């Protein structure tokens, strides 16, 4: 394992310290908890927006703390949900009395820990509710299973719910627009190489020198198919077909696109991916309103990318366009 770290068991604490040192104007640490809180929070009258999950997905989620986005993020160990007390303390720290919305990715661990936190918050007199993001079409949805995973589409939920909350909307209104976003966003990813969880010290799966995995999750969970590596255009076509056919997206739709790097894949390649994404949308008569290319929801140093497509309506467009000033998501 080659990493710029000290002791593997300290990576999360040291990362959080480094973040606060880098961005004191954006975040402060919640003493005793693996939580970063907006330096300005709580904002009087504003609904608090909290996200969280395992670490290793940076800049998600703490990098999205800032004006017009998140008020707090709880950070579990690498790829492992934080415990309920962290969620609870984060919610308490950002509640101004208007209530708190937690944006949770759909994994058993995140679901259960945040649910416990929600129940605990009730006792503490904080109104907390949750929205569950499940945008990954690689996994079949079904009421009999945990359902689809939450991946990079979550960032759209942060942006849009964050903008709504910044406008002074009520908890119900913020939750409603977050749910609308979830209902309209679909994503899928693929990986070229694994990543190494520091404390494990070795790769969490292996791929041969000429192999890739389509549908790979952001923790290295298996995807749909493992196959010989193909040209970028072919890979993008395969992902886009799954994504667009899911809602489905149809001619005339206006969408936002996010091409997200999983960690080791250079920006050069993400733009090559975006070129094909744009071509496919054009060919299908889907018009792209905004495009985001970069690293938003990573899996440590995994090589690969995900594509997210969000169907827009006038409300979502306006909220997506609203200014934001988060550590790793700025819109002037």
């Amino acid at each position: 394992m080659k990493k710029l770290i000290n002791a593997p068991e300290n990576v999360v604490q040291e990362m959080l310290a480094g973040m606060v040192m880098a961005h004191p104007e954006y975040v402060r640490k919640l003493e005793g908890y693996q939580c970063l809180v907006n330096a300005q929070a709580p904002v009087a009258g504003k609904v608090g927006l909290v996200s969280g999950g395992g670490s290793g997905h940076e800049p998600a989620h703490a990098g999205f703390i800032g004006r017009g986005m998140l008020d707090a993020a709880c950070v579990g160990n690498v790829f492992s949900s934080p415990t309920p007390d962290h969620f609870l303390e984060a919610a308490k720290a950002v509640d101004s009395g208007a209530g708190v919305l937690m944006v949770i990715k759909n994994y058993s661990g995140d679901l259960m820990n945040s649910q416990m936190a929600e129940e605990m918050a009730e006792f503490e007199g904080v109104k907390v509710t949750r929205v569950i993001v499940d945008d990954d079409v690689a996994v079949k949805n079904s009421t009999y299973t945990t359902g689809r995973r939450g991946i990079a589409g979550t960032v759209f939920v942060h942006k849009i719910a964050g903008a709504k909350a910044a406008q002074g909307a009520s908890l119900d209104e913020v939750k409603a627009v977050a749910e609308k976003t979830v209902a309209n966003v679909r994503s899928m990813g693929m990986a070229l190489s694994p990543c190494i969880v520091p404390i494990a010290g070795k790769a969490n799966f292996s791929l041969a020198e000429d192999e890739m995995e389509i549908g790979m999750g952001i923790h290295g969970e298996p995807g749909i198919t493992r196959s010989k590596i193909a040209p970028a255009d072919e890979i993008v076509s395969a992902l886009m077909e799954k994504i667009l056919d899911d809602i489905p997206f149809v001619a005339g739709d206006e969408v936002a696109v996010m091409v997200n790097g999983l960690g080791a894949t250079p920006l050069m390649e993400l733009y090559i991916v975006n070129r094909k994404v744009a071509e496919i949308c054009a060919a299908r008569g889907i018009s792209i309103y905004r495009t985001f290319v970069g690293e938003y929801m990573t899996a440590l140093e995994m090589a690969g990318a995900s594509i997210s497509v969000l169907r827009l309506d006038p409300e979502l467009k306006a909220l997506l366009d609203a200014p934001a000033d988060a550590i790793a998501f700025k819109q002037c």
Partner: protein
Amino acid sequence: MEQLTSQDFQCLIAGFAANVIARRDELNELDGKLGDADFGTSIAGGCNALQALLPELVGLAPGMVLGKSGMTLVKSMGGASGPLFGTIFMRAGKELGNQTEAGVAELARMFNASLEGVKTLGKSDVGDKTLIDALAPAAQALSAAAARGATLAEALADACAAAGQGVEATKAMIANRGRAHYVGERGIGHQDAGATAIHLLFKVFADYAA
């Protein structure tokens, strides 16, 4: 021994913690076949916290011993297994209430309460290839043992054997819950890590009472 006292539960928790910590890598490897290879790290972390908690448990009623242990697991583990294992201990402790000892009948009630708690929280059931597939047969074995008036040693040996069979049974299952469900059919042949830890728990109980 037919009744477990507070001190017994403290010993059992210490034994469970030590056993789990020793098997950390093995549990990670099992989780690696179906999930994200962190279950061993996660539950070993929880067990370290349990070891640190032990001094605080001295003198508490058995229900509180279990309840505090559960809360400690919830607070220290994270992941999917944190709330679930925490719930197992918390519900068992709650079920026992203020009683100062637990015999076969109590243990049967306690672990059936644990089972219900896990099912509700995890929105899962028998056959989903989770720890429930070890916990449910163990709880059932305890109920059966209580009904026929078995000794504590017999009851816990039965529960341990049932849990072990439950672990075996998970090999053939396709997961619906937790990260394991992403592997779908590719998971056939591999046993569930959470179920394996439940078997370990009952093995510690059985060995203690034997």
